[in-house]
């Protein structure tokens, strides 16, 4: 790799589309030049991922005028308008990295193993634990039925009892699990449990799986050490999983950095952004099949994937999990259950269709609110207890958190929400994306929101492993579209009662002073890269972050939408009566100019 990079090519091989971006250095700045895409070619009839990569690169060549390919070879290094200095890639083709995890205690080592696999960018197919109440034979059956890409076995603190971890190994050996891709190789299994059990584990599993031993992810009760196992997952992802996927052996030789699982790359970028900006952030990527949630709170990274919450393939599951009543509550009109159900199922079986009517758009955005809400709930449930590497706590603290299931996701401390995925990035009006996220996540106090413009976070994530400067610069300049700031109060009150009074001093010196009644929403225009000063004083029953009735002062940043003042209470007080709720939703939509006819 040349010491100075002038042209960088990055691809993300998704399940259906391979997306390529070209980053060029112009006037001393790294900027996105063009983006190209082509169908992914992992499946028949091509069965070679590089075909789709080459097609996407060809589109980049056509759009940019830069010659990148010499036949089927990427030209490196760059010389003028010919070639690129670096090529990197991520991949989630073929369903991504599918891992089954096992640990002794469900709430402890098994949960640590789950966090480890998720943090490495995997989809966790199942979590087995000695105390998960399934009888042994059922666990063995489950291991046999699932065909994961790899297994992560943890269990026991170092020096503790080995019998439970060994028992899990015995189950795995009895199940004789087979890998999802290919038949001619053994399933990789990472053992990251009690070091005293290593020899016994080797004895039981050696020869039955491709055993790989790494440091214990929970060496002592009050310490979690996810790094080594996560690193090993990435190594095995390349050595075993990628090597089995069609065309990847070739692709690996083209890249200037190891290929990363797509969510791992996005997570890495989120961590980098949170660290560089010194903020707590929540990121969400809502796709057709799955929704990924990332969070970084006080420097602790967590990721979860809600495997069956999505806007096309999984849209019907959103209805099934959220329930009809929860979806209906966001619709500013009445719709027959039969009609709504059929529409949702038709989207599921024809996932590439798009809403043509405003009503259809509102149905999809109602479902998106519920998918996002449920995904955050799942994230909150896992982002608990011990986090990250070598964070030590007392045993009593550890036990208290385990028992209470205390989440790290504190919405009062949340600074930034980043939304990604078609329903958010391609919402016809940016206000729709902003309100979907506010309604779903219900942030508290002052929170800044943004969306990913064209889904290039995976590309920038893997790029950050070799050139952080280029990755973060392009992220700030070309990837994120700032939406604006939400100021929201916690509490509940009577209709018409004042929730908070506010004074906003806009950049042009104009002062907006008003009182917002409970149950209302208001937006103020404030452009991208503009800041305003805000003072807000809640009435006695409400809190803006520093206590009930106490005034807050601060700066708010603008964006494509501006500032949204939210006095609808937490949880948002939606009327039970249909007519009243429809009026309410229409009033809120009008307040933020949500739809063309103000409906």
């Amino acid at each position, binding site marked *: 790799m040349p010491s100075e990079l002038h042209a960088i090519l990055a691809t993300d091989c998704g*399940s259906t589309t391979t997306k390529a971006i070209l980053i060029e250095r112009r006037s001393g700045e790294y900027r996105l030049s063009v983006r190209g895409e082509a169908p*992914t070619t*992992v*499946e028949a009839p091509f069965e070679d991922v590089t075909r789709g990569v080459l097609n996407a690169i060809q589109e980049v060549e056509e759009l940019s005028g830069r010659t990148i390919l010499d036949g089927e070879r990427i030209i490196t290094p760059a010389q003028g308008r010919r070639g690129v200095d670096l090529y990197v890639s991520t991949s989630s*083709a*073929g*369903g991504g990295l599918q891992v089954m995890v096992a640990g002794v205690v469900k709430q402890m080592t098994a949960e640590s193993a789950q966090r480890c696999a998720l943090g490495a960018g995997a989809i966790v197919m199942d979590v087995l634990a000695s105390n998960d109440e399934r*009888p*042994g*034979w059922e666990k*063995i*059956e489950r291991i*046999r039925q699932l065909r994961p890409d790899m297994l992560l076995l943890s269990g026991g603190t170092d020096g503790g009892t*080995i*019998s*439970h971890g*060994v*028992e899990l190994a*015995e*189950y795995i*050996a*009895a*199940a*004789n699990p*087979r890998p999802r891709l290919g*038949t001619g190789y053994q399933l990789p299994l990472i053992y990251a449990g009690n070091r005293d059990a290593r020899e*016994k584990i080797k004895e039981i599993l050696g020869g039955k799986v491709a055993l790989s031993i790494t440091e214990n992810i929970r060496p002592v009760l009050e310490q979690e050490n996810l790094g080594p196992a996560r690193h090993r997952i990435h190594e095995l992802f390349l050595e075993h999983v990628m090597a089995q996927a069609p065309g990847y052996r070739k692709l690996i030789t083209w890249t200037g950095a190891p290929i990363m699982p797509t969510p791992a790359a996005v997570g890495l970028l989120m961590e980098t952004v949170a660290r560089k900006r010194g903020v707590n952030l929540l990121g969400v990527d809502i796709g057709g*099949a799955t929704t990924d949630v990332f969070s970084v709170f006080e420097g602790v990274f967590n990721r979860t994937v809600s495997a*069956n919450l999505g806007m096309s*393939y*999984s849209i*019907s*599951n959103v209805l*099934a*999990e959220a329930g009809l009543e929860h979806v209906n509550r966001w619709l500013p009109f009445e719709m027959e*259950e*039969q009609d709504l*159900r*059929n*529409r*949702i*199922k*038709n989207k*599921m*079986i*024809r*996932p*590439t*269709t*798009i*809403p*043509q*009517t*405003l009503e*259809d*758009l509102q149905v999809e955005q109602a479902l998106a609110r519920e998918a996002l809400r449920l995904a955050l709930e799942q994230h909150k449930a896992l982002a608990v207890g011990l986090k990250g590497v070598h964070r030590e706590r007392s045993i009593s603290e550890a036990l208290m958190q385990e028992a209470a299931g205390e989440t790290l996701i504190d919405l009062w401390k949340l600074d930034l929400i980043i939304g990604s995925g078609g329903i958010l990035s*391609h919402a*016809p*009006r940016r206000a729709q994306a902003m309100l979907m996220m506010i309604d779903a996540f219900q942030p508290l106090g002052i929170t800044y929101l943004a969306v990913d413009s064209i889904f290039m976070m995976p590309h920038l994530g893997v790029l950050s492993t070799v050139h952080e400067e280029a990755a973060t610069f392009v992220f700030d300049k070309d990837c994120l579209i700032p939406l604006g700031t939400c100021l929201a109060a916690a509490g509940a009150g009577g209709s018409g009662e004042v929730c908070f009074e506010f004074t906003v001093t806009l950049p042009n010196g104009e002062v907006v002073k008003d009182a917002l009644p409970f149950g209302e929403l208001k937006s103020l225009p404030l452009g991208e890269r503009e800041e305003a000063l805000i003072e807000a004083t809640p009435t006695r029953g409400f809190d803006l972050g520093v206590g009930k009735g106490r005034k807050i002062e601060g700066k708010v940043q603008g964006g494509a939408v501006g500032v949204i003042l939210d006095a609808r209470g937490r949880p948002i007080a939606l009327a039970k009566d249909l007519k009243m709720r429809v009026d309410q939703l229409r009033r809120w939509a009008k307040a933020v100019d949500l739809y*063309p006819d103000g409906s």
Partner: protein
Amino acid sequence: MAHVYTPGLRVTPRMVIRKRRVLPIPGEVLVREGDPVESSTVVARALLPGKVYTVNVVNRLGISPGEIRSYMLKKEGEPIEAGEPIAESRPFIKWLKTQVLSPITGTIEMVSEVTGQVLVREPPQPLELFAYLDGKVVEVVPKEGAVVETTCAFIQGIFGIGGETVGKLAFAVERPDDVLTPEKIGPEHRGAILIGGSFVAEETIKRAREVGVNALVVGGLNDLDLRRLLGYDLGVAITGTERIGLTLILTEGFGKIPMAGRTFDLLASKEGWKASCSGATQIRAGVIRPEVIIPLDQAPDPKSPPSPLSKRGARGDFPPEEGGMSVGDTVRIIREPYFGLIARVKELPPEPRQIATESKVRVLIASLPDGHDVIIPRANVELIEE
């Protein structure tokens, strides 16, 4: 651009199809390349390892794991019968003896000196893999199975439930927009792949099941009925393993939607013929759609009634079905507000246009049957070849 790619379900009167029939685990292949096969021919078989049960011997006997072997009556690999003692304590007083009995008939898989448990495994279960199609073996996959080829008429549905089945094609409706109702189904439809029209309700499916219909192929179904049939809300379109007593294939979607004329006509032209079908659907990368395969190398059953093609308006010509969309093509609109309507492509404007949602998307101008022209996003149509 007057020629664009748009997805469409495959409906073709003649094609060569190859089905890869492989075992989930290595086994024995029973056919050879070139062998003719019928749908019921076993092409390969394997022994699926039996279920494993755990018996916590040390807890039951009150001993430590390290001592377990000295209390075992059976060794690893030895056969056992259900209820047979596999371990026992040795007290001084014999009648205080505790025995641990095997919960199943099988073999001792493992005795663990660490956990103190014994794993016992049921005998292997034979698994037979059928050819599914009438055709011939064109390739043998050693230890796994075979590739079966047949020349057939082929119809893809949009969504299905239930697995593979075989039967003769029978009709219970006259027109593609007829609703299939319970009284239209009789004992003569037992074992058939029964073709309905635009819609089937839960009560009709129950009637079909009672009669012993093997599969139903219809235009549409209400999602509420699907939920009642399955007993749960189907969240993700990955199907094929449901057990509702028959296989159900929707050719058009959810709601009442007339079966595409081309699909109906092709099925009608093969009334009485033997067909293989599957409801298995997977709408993800590597899409699997439900299918009806009608091998052409067969004469219609003389006992079945002659196909009243004239009544059902079948045509004999079927042009190729793959390719792009051009002006003049017939399409089905697959999204509101014109969902289910058949239209003709009048114009394919190259530039994106703003639609009612304010999204700017690529569109087509379509002429509806009533003569109106409407703008439709290109993503919201499927090609129907005539």
